[in-house]
């Protein structure tokens, strides 16, 4: 379902502008509901992901869905609500019993190990706020811009949580180190046993986490309960959910997901492979697709993130990319985490386009679409990170556009 939202209704609320015209009409105070074991959402707040089957195929029968997208048009702040973290699964969501779940660690290591969840939760833990992004995020806009898309449709395959788990390094030390290994196969316990070959770079050895919790609580099944790999800044598919096996080796295993899928076709018909980093990216979440603005003050709000590290600057253009102004970050930017930006704008009522571009601490600047496509072609399907333009009509209708 799609709704027209006023630009200011960024918090998932449908407020009728009339409401109460005098304070005398505000409903009288009265005792409320009893305290509870869990705080549910207000009945006035409707938040849900959108399951989809492939670019342009949505809404979709849930059994056909392969993605379920985060409603950025209705969120604020930088952390994603736990139950709204985007979802990408290849064989549905398994219902795993943590008492029966096992992690096998083997291959080119001094010794093999079988770990229970009790073992893993008794190891030293680290927590880190970081984004996870599906390699396919942005895949709607490679070739054409469906003007009916919302920001949930265009950018809903990225989310930010506090992840908690055991450093990968700790588990590697447990099996006696892996000096001769250069790759690690990570495999899930899902129906597809999704498996990826992970290069043992210094960054991955230092930052990889065997995560068992998100935002303070055990992972939810859709996100890998009871255990997943989490590799900050790298393509989401590497962060294998329902993790049940780590195997060390000296070459990639060439699973379907790093050959047939998650490789990026160039214009010449050859494909980039192991393009694992999520590039610097940003999007304006309000006003965004299918919203409507009125002439006058408009608060522009959005999210920026980069797999290279911290966001150091976000700029916004309200004239379709001709001129740029620095936006304000609403919280300290964390490395490899989404951060919100805001900018004040007064819309005079003339048609225009609004765009954001982010810069990260490695000085990577998010490219405009023309430069991005010149480099990548339009067949890559994954790793789309060009600037997002929202066109605004004379009537104030905000629509997805290529630039």
């Amino acid at each position: 379902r799609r709704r027209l939202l006023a630009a200011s209704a960024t918090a998932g609320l449908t407020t009728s502008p009339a409401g109460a015209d005098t304070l005398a009409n505000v409903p009288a105070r009265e005792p409320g509901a009893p305290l509870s074991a869990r705080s549910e959402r207000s009945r006035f707040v409707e938040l849900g992901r959108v399951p989809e089957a492939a670019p342009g195929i949505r809404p979709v029968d849930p059994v056909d869905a392969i993605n379920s997208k985060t409603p950025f048009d209705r969120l604020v702040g930088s952390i994603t609500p736990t139950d709204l973290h985007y979802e990408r699964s290849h064989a549905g969501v398994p219902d795993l019993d943590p008492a029966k779940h096992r992690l096998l660690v083997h291959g080119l290591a001094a010794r093999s190990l079988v770990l229970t969840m009790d073992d893993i939760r008794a190891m030293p833990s680290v927590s880190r706020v970081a984004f996870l992004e599906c390699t396919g995020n942005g895949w709607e806009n490679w070739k054409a811009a469906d003007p009916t898309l919302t920001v949930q449709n265009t950018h809903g395959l990225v989310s930010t949580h506090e992840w908690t788990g055991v450093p990968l390094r700790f588990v590697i030390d447990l099996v006696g180190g892996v000096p001769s290994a250069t790759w690690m196969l990570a495999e899930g316990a899902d129906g597809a046993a999704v498996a990826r070959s992970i290069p043992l770079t210094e960054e991955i050895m230092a930052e990889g986490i065997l995560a068992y919790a998100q935002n303070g609580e055990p992972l939810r099944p859709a996100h890998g309960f009871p255990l997943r790999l989490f590799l900050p800044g790298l393509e989401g598919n590497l962060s294998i959910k329902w993790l049940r096996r780590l195997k060390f080796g000296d070459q990639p295993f060439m699973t379907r997901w790093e050959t047939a899928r998650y490789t990026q076709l160039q214009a010449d018909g050859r494909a980039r492979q192991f393009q694992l980093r999520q590039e610097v990216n940003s999007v304006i979440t309000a006003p965004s697709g299918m919203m409507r603005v009125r002439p006058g003050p408009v608060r522009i709000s959005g999210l920026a993130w980069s797999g290279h590290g911290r966001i150091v600057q976000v700029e916004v253009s309200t004239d379709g990319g001709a001129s740029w102004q620095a936006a304000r970050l609403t919280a300290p930017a964390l490395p490899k985490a989404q951060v919100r930006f805001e900018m004040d704008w007064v819309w005079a009522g003339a048609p225009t386009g609004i765009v954001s571009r982010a810069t990260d601490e490695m000085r990577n600047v998010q490219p405009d679409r023309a430069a991005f496509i010149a480099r990548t072609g339009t067949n890559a399907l994954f790793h789309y990170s060009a600037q997002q333009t929202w066109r605004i009509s004379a009537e104030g209708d905000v629509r997805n556009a290529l630039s």
Partner: protein
Amino acid sequence: QSFGRTPSASEIAGWDIDVRPDGAGLPAGGGTVAQGRAVYDENCAACHGPEGRDGIRDRLAGGQGTLASGQPIKTVGSYWPYATTLFDYIRRAMPYQAPASLSADETYAVSAYILYLNGILPAEGGLDRASLPRVRMPNRDGFLPEREFTAGWTAAR
């Protein structure tokens, strides 16, 4: 502090399902295109269509020569660089509703049949542990590994 236990070799073997491009991980056994057609018709055709085309799920055949076009069709035949990946993927993930339900022979056979549908094996062909890694896939050289993540490995090749 000690965590976990050492698995037995047979426990590991039961879980160690991956197959590498050099054939490491392939089980004993084998199967022919003809045998594979039967396995396919029984277990796969409902989703992938009669000849790996026009199914309700992923297309498995055709598309060669389309990769540089505006409408690339990526299939086992047109896109996949290694035949070992086909065996590995079917063994771990297919048929969708009952993963790991095929025998090794059946998996060799249906892999052979899919390669046949793509013109990579002849009708009277077959696959086993020795021959599978030697199959030269049409798009074998179609991939450009990213330096940042593969420098050591590409240098070693």
